[in-house]
């Protein structure tokens, strides 16, 4: 069959009127209009209406058309004609014309669909279809090849392609080489769990899939490439989160003989360009904020700057206050900070502030409580305002720059960390609750100068990774306090409260690198075992270098405004790291395990149904909403195996039971209605006694964890 003459559906317009065309694609929708049959023919460029008129097409073609079903793959020939006035379809780019068919081949038929694919209504005046948003995501993922036929999904992946192309072009223009690094490698210290790949040639030994090409890209700098990038898949076996994938795509970049400013400028230009693909204009340079400032003013290292309400420190106002709680906190070296929720006093009533925020919500954020003040008629109003004298009240209003209608929410605690953390969560909570976050606004910010170390369970750990250049090099690695005071030459790119990427200037000096390992408490032997190959590289004239990595799934999702990153990945795993399409991860044959020297069994001991697949156990755990701990796993597994045996035993008794009805109780009773009583609330509900046994109660209701996503 010759497709040379094929024209894309989406390219047709009134200029083609009268032309004879060959089209090919899928039946998006069908409409039987009395005698005349209409179909929407869809290919990757768009949709065009094709008409089969029994008066004009041959009976053979018409009969074939009558047999068409949704998503049959077909080839059509016909003549482009202008639609009758009043029958144009404004939902289609090709809505002014249609194709009067004279030839039709069904290239491949489709069985009935698990969910509708069509997104375009055939009728003018009706709403666009697109009901697929309500289709269960598991089903969409299971039939991803059909889901991806939807124009909206194709558009997302096309945009993703354009973004990637834009990156490659941009980096090409800036002298970067794309170099591939291995997928089968040694585990690198990125902090998450590795996906391991067993080696057949070295039984009991494993490759690790890379969590990032960190060490390889640094070695490429040692090797003298100077500017490297890679759009690379990375793997992390982390705890399940709704918007996280076990494998993800990262733009990974490294350059030599550069400093932070190079990265900032380069990346700002690049990010600006890729956001422009989604018609989002960003202005450069991006603002910068030290980690310290971010924590002090927003309580997080991922500040959301789409709205104000940054923290105001008021500790110094209360050194001599009559309000005992503040006084004590100040005396203990504590901290008092607050936010000004401007002009929202109508929405934040005393009741909401006191009973919800002060008593419930803020304690949930880890602070003891919250002080609130409303500004009414130029004066502060609060349940504790009487404890502050006139001067203090005026100072508070000045410090928070208040106007009538403002609400101050203040947290005081002996721990500065507690104040910042709780106030940061409160800031977001209030912003979401009062809808203070403007939509379609993008606020990038560089967060810089992270601490180099943090305190972990066993001494110091690196905040980024151990190859990050410290801001000062003359520290004593055995002096923990001194180490904790160090900042690093690192930077995160944050947008709208999400971390899009991050990087740092790296250590290029072997001696300094050793000092870092010493501070981390790694013995020379451990260092050799873990990083020997890399340190060897560092010893051969390593140029100063640094780099950055950008999480592409998240970036594309943000640019396209999708609800989850799965929408911009062709074949994602579901939120439980399972692929409904392929059924991965799956069990493997015992012979495969034996070859790899894995598994206690071996081919001889395999019994069909000997152990329920991990998949089944996972499903049962999910439907039962019961997590099984590792030490119970074997027992519960055995019980499920027993159940499988019982199901088989039951099957053998099908014969003599066929004609019977299932019996669900030893006698049946219907119509259980108590007579003579009126509908009423149960006394235990009325007097709230029902709440007495609840683990958590809030304002007369049972309190539960929030539903994420």
């Amino acid at each position, binding site marked *: 069959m010759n497709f040379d003459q094929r024209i894309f559906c989406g390219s047709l317009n009134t200029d083609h009127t009268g032309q004879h065309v060959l089209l090919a694609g899928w039946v998006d929708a069908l409409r039987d209009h009395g005698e005349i049959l209409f179909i929407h023919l869809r290919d990757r460029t768009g949709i065009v209406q094709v008409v089969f008129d029994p008066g004009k097409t041959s009976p053979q073609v018409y009969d074939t058309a009558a047999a068409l079903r949704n998503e049959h793959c077909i080839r059509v020939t016909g003549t482009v004609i202008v639609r009758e006035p009043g029958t144009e379809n404004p939902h289609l780019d090709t809505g002014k014309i249609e194709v009067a068919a004279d030839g039709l081949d069904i290239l491949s038929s489709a069985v009935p669909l698990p969910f509708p694919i069509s997104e375009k209504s055939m009728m003018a005046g009706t709403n666009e279809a697109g009901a697929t948003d309500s289709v269960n995501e598991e089903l969409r993922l299971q039939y991803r090849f059909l889901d991806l036929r939807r124009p909206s999904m194709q558009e997302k992946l096309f945009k993703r392609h354009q973004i990637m192309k834009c990156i490659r072009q941009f980096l090409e223009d800036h002298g970067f080489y794309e170099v591939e690094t291995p997928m089968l490698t040694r585990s690198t210290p990125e902090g998450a769990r590795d996906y391991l790949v067993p080696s057949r040639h070295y039984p009991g030994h494993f490759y690790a899939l890379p969590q990032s090409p960190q060490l390889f890209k640094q070695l490429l700098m040692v090797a003298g490439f100077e500017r490297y990038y890679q759009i690379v898949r990375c793997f992390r076996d982390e705890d399940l989160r709704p918007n996280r994938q076990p494998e993800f795509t990262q733009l990974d970049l490294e350059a030599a003989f550069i400093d932070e400013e190079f990265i900032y400028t380069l990346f700002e230009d690049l990010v600006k360009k890729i956001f422009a693909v989604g018609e989002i204009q960003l202005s450069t340079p991006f603002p910068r904020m030290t980690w310290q400032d971010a924590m002090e003013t927003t309580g997080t290292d991922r500040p959301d700057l789409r709205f104000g309400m940054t923290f105001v420190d008021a500790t110094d106002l209360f050194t001599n206050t009559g309000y005992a709680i503040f006084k004590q906190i100040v005396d203990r070296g504590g901290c008092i900070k607050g936010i000004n929720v401007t002009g929202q006093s109508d929405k934040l009533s005393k009741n909401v502030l006191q009973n919800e925020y002060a008593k419930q919500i803020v304690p949930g954020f880890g602070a003891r409580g919250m002080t609130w003040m409303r500004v009414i008629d130029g004066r502060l109003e609060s349940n504790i305002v009487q404890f502050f004298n006139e001067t203090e009240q005026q100072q508070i209003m000045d410090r928070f720059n208040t106007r009538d209608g403002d609400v101050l929410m203040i947290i005081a605690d002996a721990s500065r960390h507690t104040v910042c953390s709780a106030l940061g969560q409160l800031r977001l909570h209030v912003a979401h609750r009062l809808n203070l976050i403007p939509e379609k606004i993008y606020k990038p910010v560089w967060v810089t100068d992270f601490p180099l170390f943090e305190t972990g369970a066993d001494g110091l750990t690196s905040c980024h990774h151990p190859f990050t250049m410290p801001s000062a090099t003359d520290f004593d690695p055995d002096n923990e306090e001194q180490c904790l005071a160090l900042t690093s030459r690192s930077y995160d790119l944050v947008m709208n409260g999400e971390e899009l990427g991050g990087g740092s200037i790296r250590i290029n000096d072997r001696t300094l690198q050793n000092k870092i390992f010493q501070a981390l408490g790694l013995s020379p032997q451990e260092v050799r075992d873990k990083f020997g190959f890399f340190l060897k590289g560092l010893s051969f004239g390593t140029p100063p270098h640094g780099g950055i990595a950008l999480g592409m799934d998240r970036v594309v999702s943000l640019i396209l405004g999708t609800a989850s990153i799965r929408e911009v990945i062709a074949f994602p795993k579901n939120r439980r790291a399972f692929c409904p399409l392929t059924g991965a991860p799956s069990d493997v044959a015992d012979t495969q395990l034996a070859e790899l020297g894995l598994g206690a069994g071996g081919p001889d001991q395999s019994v069909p149904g000997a152990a329920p697949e991990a998949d089944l156990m996972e499903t049962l755990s999910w439907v039962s909403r019961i997590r099984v701990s590792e030490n119970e796993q074997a027992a*519960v597994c055995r019980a499920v195996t027993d159940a499988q045996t019982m199901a088989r035993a*039951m099957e053998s008794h099908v014969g003599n*039971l066929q004609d019977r009805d299932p019996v669900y109780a030893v006698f049946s*009773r219907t119509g259980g209605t108590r007579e003579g009583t009126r509908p009423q609330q149960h006394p235990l509900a009325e007097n709230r006694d029902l709440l007495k046994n609840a683990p958590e109660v809030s304002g007369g209701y049972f309190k539960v*964890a929030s539903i994420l996503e």
Partner: protein
Amino acid sequence: MDSSVFSFTPLPADFDAADALRIAVQPGMSCRGWPAGAGTTALENFTALEDAFVIQQLKQTGMVIAGATRMSELGLGLTRDTGALAVTDGRADAALIIDYLGEARAAGAKARIFGFKPSWGSVSRQGLTGLVPSMECWGITGRRILDIQQVMTAICAPDDHDFSMHPGPLPDFTESHQFQDRAPVIGVADGYDASLTPEEIRAWKSGLAALETAGCRITRISLPDAALFSLAHHIIASVEASSSAGRYDGVRYGHRTSASDNWNEMYLKTRGESFGTLIKSFLFQGAYFQFQQYATFEQACRLRGLLMDQTLATLSELDGLAGLTITDKADPVAAQTIDHTYQAFGFTLPASLTGLPAVQIPGLACHGSKDFGLHITGKPFKDPDLLALARFLENMGNTGGTP
């Protein structure tokens, strides 16, 4: 005060109940203001807000609720149960034990006292923390049938808060039921002894001999599918358990995990921490049938109908259907897995599946020092007749249960 017998009791150890019957309950039976954790973390710190209907009835007739015993998780099996011990230690005259598979009867057999399970639907389940709605009953253990009769007289009464109760008239325990005029007819299933171990056969023979000595007429009956009781019970009970345990979500009562990021995590972790391995295994089996293999569950329900029909047909000519209460294949107080639990209760679970009344009689079916218990299943809602039969056998003076 607490003791090894009671997890909770308001009474001093030397409490004098005078003439009143002292009833021990399980902490899965609601007594207003008492801890009612039902032996499970899922209900930790749960305090009953009101008296169960049965408890109200007992109190109204002047009986004393002596204390809450210890119990297995949600009352499944007997691994931690001290109900029968409360009776043999003299701390109670009767102990109520929830009966899914025969727990009360097996507890009676282990302690060499009487055990009784009423007809399903004759006693209100309101206030009973259960797991298997279509089978669970208030079982009773006691030293004397008379005490069990008294308890049944008090608790077998209509309660319009339990819609699952039998709609027709309930058994009347106040009428006189006695076996003085005629010999009781006791059925024995063909091939029953073929499934027994040598020890069990000896005990069974001594039980049959005792019945004959007492003047009973033994008659052979046919229960062709008796081997399938356990399979049907297991499938159905696990599905019902998996469903009804859904209420233990850590929202309205019971244990809640200390840390959870979101709703799903809260459920998974809360319930993961709430149940022990035995219950978890049972719930997973139920979930398997319910979500993966529903046809098996429906098939088991058809089988249940078949087994009920067969049992009722044989009972029409009998006063009771006899067997042993406990087995030596598995010990009901030591069974740690679901599989062992079902083995241990193999003789008692048919009455649970069919909802029939059943009584355990000590001292008749013994071999050497071991008492396997004589188990007699009665006709539906003829509980008073069955207890009268047990009384008849008790009065033969051979039961050893009377002090």
